[in-house]
């Protein structure tokens, strides 16, 4: 076997992956699509094609869930992006290499430290019997973890490190010479950021924001483990519907809601990928 004859071998090597994805990803995707557009089999009259699931999924309580999911993700992603930029800049410009690499490694862990442990850490800190809540008397001040703003505070814990990871390559790509050139031309620090750095960073910042939005939007475990039923979220509604907390015959509403989520996530990626490409231009 010489190198020249590798093309069919290459096909062969990729074949298991393609087959696997057809079964483990394609089948569920098809099931979701067909389910979203048909009545469930336990409905009177059996499974029939319909668009009722989809129209139901953007009405009433489900619309409230979708809107509050979008609001929560948009707001916490915005906060994380705005706060993450100076944090990342402080890390990148730090002269202590160990500190810089330590923070980046920590960001890697914390960005993945979502879900259940995160929820419990915050229950212990700011929950009703949490350490800070009791010592600072926060309940009297009107604080509750199980609200919209409580969730924002929790989400920032994994969104901020994610922003640091997303924006660091772009910040490292800012050349020292650009700042020096701006200073030689008499620009102040503010002017340098306003007219040079931020325009260069804009695609990365926007891309980072969209990425954060997407991961906040998809988050389920944190909200589930917090048990914050007071904030309606589309992920929690899907989970409830899957666990059978809906009327008989409406089981497919979960699939329609899932399709809604896929549409939003697809839009996110459609914005993210071109921005990623654009920001990569400055980095080599």
């Amino acid at each position, binding site marked *: 076997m010489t190198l020249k004859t590798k093309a069919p071998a290459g096909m062969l090597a990729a074949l298991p992956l393609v087959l696997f994805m057809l079964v483990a990803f394609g089948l569920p995707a098809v099931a979701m699509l067909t389910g979203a557009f048909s009545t469930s089999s336990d409905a009177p009259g059996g499974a029939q094609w319909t668009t009722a699931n989809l129209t139901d999924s953007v009405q009433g309580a489900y619309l409230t869930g979708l809107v509050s999911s979008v609001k929560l993700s948009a707001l916490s992603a915005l906060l994380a992006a705005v706060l993450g930029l100076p944090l990342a800049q402080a890390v990148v410009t730090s002269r202590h290499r160990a500190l810089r690499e330590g923070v980046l490694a920590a960001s890697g862990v914390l960005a*993945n430290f979502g879900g259940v442990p995160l929820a419990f850490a915050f229950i212990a800190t700011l929950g009703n019997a949490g350490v800070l809540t009791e010592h600072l008397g926060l309940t009297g001040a009107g604080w509750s973890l199980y609200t919209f703003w409580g969730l924002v505070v929790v989400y920032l814990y994994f969104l901020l490190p994610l922003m640091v990871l997303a924006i660091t390559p772009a910040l490292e790509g800012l050349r020292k010479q650009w700042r020096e050139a701006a200073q030689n031309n008499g620009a102040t620090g503010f002017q340098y950021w306003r007219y040079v750095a931020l325009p260069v960073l804009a695609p990365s910042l926007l891309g980072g924001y969209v990425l954060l939005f997407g991961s906040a939007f998809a988050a389920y475990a944190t909200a589930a483990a917090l048990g914050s039923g007071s904030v309606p979220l589309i992920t929690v509604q899907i989970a409830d519907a899957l666990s059978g907390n809906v009327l008989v015959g409406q089981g497919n509403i979960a*699939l329609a809601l899932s399709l809604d989520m896929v549409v939003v996530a697809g839009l996110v990626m459609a914005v993210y990928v071109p921005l990623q490409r654009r920001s990569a231009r400055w980095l080599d």
Partner: protein
Amino acid sequence: MARLTRKPLWRGAVGLLAGLYFLVPVAASVIFTVDVPGQGFTLDAYSGILSADGFTDSLLLTLELAAATIVLVMVLLVPALVAVRLGAPRLRPLLEIICSLPLVVPSVALVSGYSSVLRWGPEHLSRTPLFQTFTAVQDKRFPFVLVLAYTVMALPLAYRALDSGLRAVDVRVLVEAARSCGASAPRAVLQVVLPNLRGALLNASFLTLALVLGEYTVGALLGYQPFAVWIVNTGGNQAQLSVAVSVLSLVVTWMLLLVFAALGRPRDRSRSLSRSSRRAGRDAAAPAPIAQEVA
């Protein structure tokens, strides 16, 4: 000059605030577990973990699932990626699209698809041999269906880690060199290419492991009890215990990261070589900034 060497205050302030925000919940969790109201200082929450009902079972299940997922991810991805570098570059866009598709489907949506596929078993296939497959993948002792879902979810992360590792190595040259020294093609790949990818392989494995260890959504909604689901189910009646387990799982993740970083560091190289490869290794080690459903 004074301006250039000045230490900006804002950097310290930002660092301090961020440090507070990220350390306080961890510190508070530790305090919460050892300072029980009415009892004072106690380590009961930690000593109670091992004897807690279901702890060992769910942890073992999760570790087995993680091992199976890592193996499956590697078996699927590594040959395809190496082949793309060796002689099938036209496959590259296809692979990239395939491996990015799961990003468009949040895990809650994925699990709703899985649960309706699993319902086909009893509804349509009960008279066919396929039905046994459906039963087998849902075995409570080792639900293979979770491995399938986790592999799908891990693909984008693992793909990025492996791809950036491959970018730092010229696979074609390595294989040609090995072949002209008389190595067979499989040997060239196994003994020359793969060792050079050690950092990327470890990094991809670590990301997959972290994903499976923390995964809650799919396990909970399909009705299994891996580790994260067990923590939540226990939390209902024993808050201290759940927080203690959460703290431990954070510590374990940290230690695993350190172990993987140490394993991935190249040994016995000249200084300049090790510096440049360390840089390449760091690029590969920076986790892909894509949070697959972790939260």
